[in-house]
């Protein structure tokens, strides 16, 4: 109970801090915070698959891209309403995730990873080559941020970054809350069971493949949400969103932050984006700097940053309790 209260308190503090960002910091910091939140949404959903269920996917960029293209195409041909667009983006991503998931969930481990990689790259190749629909390698450009009109004719403008920030923050908070609920739910426990021992889960009566498919689609929904928000933020949708190098990002930040907690991928996202930015201010050789930092983190913090820190806390707290 105590730990729960503490976590809730920490979440409230972070939320408040995030709310304060647009009032206290410069435009670039607002922008970077938005990028961190987008990657956070992507990763926190992805970690339901990797951390909670134990499946390594290298194809989630495809769902991210599906979200972006879904919103972009819907905006170009039907309606520029951002909420509808996001909904369409998420729906597109889920649809694609169900399709890909159906083919892949029979496999596990590296074979699952390679199959999702293959599917993701097929999607990449589709977005790249279907020029009539997707604009080829240029992508969809000039996606608009129309005002959000709600029932009763209220129109909330999101055109400026300071306004759009809260649009992103809303979905970020929603995603983190949803991921938290999923982790605490019966469904989440069943997923953890599959991660721990898939065979035994079957003997517990759990239809393992169907659960895998469900969580695959669910994490695809998070990816689609992040993708559609990025399409609004950057005004474009690009094939590279589906490329495996982009699919590797949530893997990287989840590992960086720690697989076993909700906060892990979020902390990882913040570290990843902030670190690259900081390194880039000192040197053009950011790849070298970032590579070395990665090495240190993997060799030094085996359980990810959050895992190692919480282990340290536990150690520090243990003598007092004893």
């Amino acid at each position, binding site marked *: 109970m105590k730990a729960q209260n503490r976590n809730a308190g920490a979440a409230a503090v972070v939320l408040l801090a995030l709310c304060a960002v647009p009032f206290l910091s410069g435009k670039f910091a607002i922008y970077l915070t938005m990028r961190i939140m987008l990657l956070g949404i992507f990763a926190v959903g992805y970690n339901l698959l990797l951390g909670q269920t134990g499946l390594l996917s290298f194809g989630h960029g495809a769902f991210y891209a599906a979200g972006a293209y879904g919103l972009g195409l819907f905006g170009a041909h039907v309606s520029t309403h951002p909420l509808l667009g996001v909904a369409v983006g998420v729906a597109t991503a889920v649809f694609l995730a169900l399709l890909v998931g159906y083919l892949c969930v029979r496999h596990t481990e590296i074979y699952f990873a390679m199959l999702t990689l293959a599917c993701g790259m097929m999607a990449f190749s589709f977005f790249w080559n279907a020029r009539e629909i997707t604009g080829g390698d240029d992508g969809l450009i000039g996606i608009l941020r129309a005002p959000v009109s709600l029932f009763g004719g209220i129109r909330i403008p999101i055109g400026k970054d300071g306004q759009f920030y809260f649009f992103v923050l809303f979905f970020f908070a929603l995603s983190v809350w*949803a991921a938290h*609920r*999923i982790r*605490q*739910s*019966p*469904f*989440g*426990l*069943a997923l*953890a*069971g599959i991660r*721990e*021992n898939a*065979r*035994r*889960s*079957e*003997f*517990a*009566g*759990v*239809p*393992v493949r169907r*659960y895998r498919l*469900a969580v695959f689609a*669910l994490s695809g929904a998070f990816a689609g949400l992040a993708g559609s928000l990025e399409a609004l933020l950057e005004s474009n949708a690009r094939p590279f969103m589906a490329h495996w190098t982009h699919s590797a990002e949530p893997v990287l930040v989840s590992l960086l932050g720690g697989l076993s907690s909700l906060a892990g991928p979020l902390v990882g996202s913040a570290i990843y984006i902030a670190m690259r930015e900081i390194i880039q201010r000192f040197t053009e050789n950011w790849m070298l700097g970032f590579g070395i930092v990665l090495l240190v983190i993997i060799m030094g913090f085996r359980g990810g940053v959050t895992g190692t820190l919480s282990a340290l806390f536990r150690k520090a707290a243990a003598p007092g309790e004893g």
Partner: protein
Amino acid sequence: MPEPLLATQKLSNHFGMVCTARDLDLRFEPGVLTSIIGPNGAGKSTLINLLTGHLPVQTGKIRFRGRDITRLPIHKRVRMGICRSFQVVNVFPELTVAQNVMIPVLARTGRGWNPVRSLTRETAVLRETEAILAMVALLPERDTPATALSHGDLRLLEVGVALAAAPTLLFLDEPTAGMNPVERARLLENIRGLARGGRTTFVVVEHDMDVVFSLSERIIVLHRGEILCDGTPGQVRTDPKVREVYLGEDVSDLFRYEEE
């Protein structure tokens, strides 16, 4: 004859050149506590693996309550009421004892799909979990991760997870291996009690002959994938073929459990 719980028809299985099950025709009647014995490599585990879906059936048929389940996936058999425990402990290592037991309870009650409701609100599930933990005497360890349990407690948990699926037919693969005598006695008493309760029919693979003969109403002796003998403990004890196999050919097997 009443409808059997489970029946096999010419069930066979080969690993390469080795035959681990040959044309097995078996019937399991409701409420009859059955033991399967036989020397190492006799095909006991293979038989359980085939019946529970762990191994795909190569030839032959399996019927459960009259329904063909030969090709049914594992989780569906479990939902129909066939479950098992494992010889080597096979639980969810990083989860707590309570969570281990909760998974099959959730699956059985169909509550495992809810992605938003907090687990702490699933009161019915929690109550049932506690009942099962009490049954296997693990209630005090409910919040311990499985990896931190002693070997004996792990064995109890193994049986607990199997029981939590509330099976009609439960295969226990050497449930007491590695237990101390106290734990063993308690577990056997539980099994006896549950069997008497009538909801679950037990089929036990055991090496400890004391256990087998004191517990079972029926004993099946397997040898090289074939049924050597099938009858009451009295019939098996006096069967010359069984004596030959156990005493003449593979004596060491009788002492195997003592070495562990």
